[in-house]
């Protein structure tokens, strides 16, 4: 059995560790590239959302590299993501690939199934203690990835030498990836802090603050959002993002198990506008936008795959939110034609607008 899985942000490293320590042979999925997307576009239905296409392309590449098992997550709707694997399996089999698809459904709905599927993925004898120590290690690793990314968001807009933060960040990612034990992770955490502290930064500079909301895959995977956070950071913008990998895992596995629906305060903020759980992250997009407005952010960028259903609902409501809370919102819908240069131009214009708005506000206050 050679296992592969979806590529999202830095999680591929963590998943590799997890699966290998469970005694599996792993084919690490390649980082999504133009080629991945072109495979996806070629074999996916035209109206599939970009995440579907990138994942399909990734699977094709991994199957070509010798994988014979695909592990992915399911879901229960109402949006499409939970049906991805059903259709991807059909498409790939139709293309002639021979493999098995293991779909991990959220535990709250199909706990028995989930346990059965997980058992398939544990292919060596281990004690319960060993099991938990593996879980603990990968969880710590995932957390450290998130923390490191968060730090890069804070430092990047302040850096004096353009690109330095990104360089350090990439180095740190490799370092974290190489860790083998929790103890090593602890040492690396110090190193990360030190390296970021050593980056030379501007003093007394109050960067424009922008929150990023939207559909989970395009928010989390830099290839899908054309590295928007880096671009913004280099434009001198402080970026905060509504979602991190650790959150995502907690929300989908842990809260689901106990039937807790979504993050409470986000939901509460959204309710006056968005009364229904529409699947995906549509309601969270509205809720987070309101929370960012309340925290005094200058603007919000709303990312969604083209034709993404819940985000279309969100997009219809955001203009009203933007007016009521006086926060600028830029909606960007991503498809395979979106180019990095075009995106950069739109971002520059948006940041410009936010800057002007701030100046005006200051003049009025003075």
């Amino acid at each position, binding site marked *: 059995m050679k296992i592969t899985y979806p590529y999202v942000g830095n999680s591929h490293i963590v998943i590799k560790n997890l699966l290998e320590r469970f005694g599996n042979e792993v084919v690490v999925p390649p980082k999504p590239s133009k080629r991945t997307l072109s495979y996806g576009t070629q074999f*996916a*239905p*035209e*109206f*599939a*959302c970009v995440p*579907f296409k990138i994942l399909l392309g990734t699977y094709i590449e991994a199957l070509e590299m010798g994988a014979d098992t695909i592990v992915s997550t*399911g879901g*229960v*709707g*109402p*949006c*499409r993501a*939970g*049906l991805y694997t*059903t*259709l991807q*399996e*059909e*498409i790939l089999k*139709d293309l002639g690939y021979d493999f098995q698809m293991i779909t991990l459904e959220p535990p709250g709905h199909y706990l028995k199934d989930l346990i059965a599927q997980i058992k398939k993925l544990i292919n060596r004898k281990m004690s319960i203690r060993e099991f938990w120590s593996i879980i603990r290690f990968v969880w710590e690793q995932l957390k450290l990835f998130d923390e490191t990314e968060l730090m890069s968001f804070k430092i990047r807009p302040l850096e004096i030498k353009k690109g330095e933060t990104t360089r350090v960040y990439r180095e740190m990612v490799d370092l974290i990836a190489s860790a083998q034990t929790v103890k090593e992770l602890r040492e690396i955490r110090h190193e990360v802090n030190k390296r970021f502290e050593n980056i030379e930064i501007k003093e007394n500079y109050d960067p424009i603050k922008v929150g990023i909301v939207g559909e989970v895959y395009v928010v989390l995977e830099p290839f899908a959002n054309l590295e928007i956070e880096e671009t913004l950071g280099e434009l001198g913008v402080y970026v905060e993002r509504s979602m991190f990998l650790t959150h995502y895992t907690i929300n989908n596995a842990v809260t689901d198990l106990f039937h807790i629906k979504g993050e409470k305060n986000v939901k509460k903020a959204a309710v006056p*506008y*968005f*009364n*229904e*759980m*529409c*699947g*995906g992250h*549509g309601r969270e997009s509205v809720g987070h936008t309101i929370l960012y407005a309340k925290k005094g952010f200058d603007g919000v960028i709303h990312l969604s795959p*083209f*034709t*993404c*259903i*819940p985000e*279309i*609902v969100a*997009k*219809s*409501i955001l*203009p*009203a939110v933007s007016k009521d809370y006086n926060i600028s919102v830029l*909606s960007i*819908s991503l498809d395979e034609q979106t180019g990095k240069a075009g995106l950069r131009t739109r971002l520059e214009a948006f940041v410009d607008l936010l800057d002007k708005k701030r100046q005006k506000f200051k003049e009025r206050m003075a």
Partner: protein
Amino acid sequence: MKVGIPRALFYYSFYPMFKTFFEKLGVKTVVSSPTTKKVLDNGIKDTVTDACVPVKLYHGHVADLIGKVDFVFVPRLVCIDNEATFCPKFLGLPDMVTYSIDNLPPLITPRIDFRNGRLELLKVCYSIGRMFTKNVVKIFKAYQESIKSLKNYEQEFLEGKIPPLNIKKRLNSDINLGALGYPYMLYDQYLSLNLLKKLFDLGVSVTTPEMISREDKLKQAGKLKKTLFWHYSNGVIRTAFHMFENCNIDGIIHVTAFGCGPDFIVDKLLELEAKKRSVPFLTITLDEQTGEEGLKTRLEAFVDMLRLRRRLA
């Protein structure tokens, strides 16, 4: 007192029920005018560009009612079958309408979710009824009558009639065709460019999902590894499976909307299944720009091909 009913989306599944209910309460109903270019253009203007055509059209129909009525009825249909919800856009419909259209009259937006128990519909009817009358008996009667009218309406479909288009299925024809799609695509003359009528004129016998009984559809439920999440989509898929298995079927036409979220899954699953069973399959994607002539040619070519196949077989 007048309540407006937009002629779009679930209108085609439930219209007689809505109408009967309000009229038995003594409230007049006004249906928005049949779709025209103007109605659609209005909807397009009010909605975000990547919304699907039917949702844009719904906004156009709501706008059409402005000035003609005291309320507009925009229910939030969540779930009516205990296994799947409606497309997420239905779930967010009242919110989208509220924040997209200016100068709206008050909306009546009951949330309908049968997962809340068997009395859900009665409860919803009661709360709407109380807006217009204190007479509980009257509300209850209106509720009963409305259900009866829905049953009659559904029965007509099962007998092969299509009440919204006022046509009846041809029974003995050389060609047996499934025209699968959501009711608000198939039965809107403007949006579908009269697709069903065109097929009838070509002399083929056409079956739509509404013509297959609930029981027959349910029998096909286990054919997919995972039940789809959306009410209408399950109807379409199961009708296809039913027809593959029980009707000596010549071909399938899947009618879908540009920008439809669920349909990229439905369409591909149908296509692959038809391929496995060697049944010819055609997808018609409708958008604001589809031309009537082009559609006619494609349908003719498809039916010709089916006839040729029949003869060679």
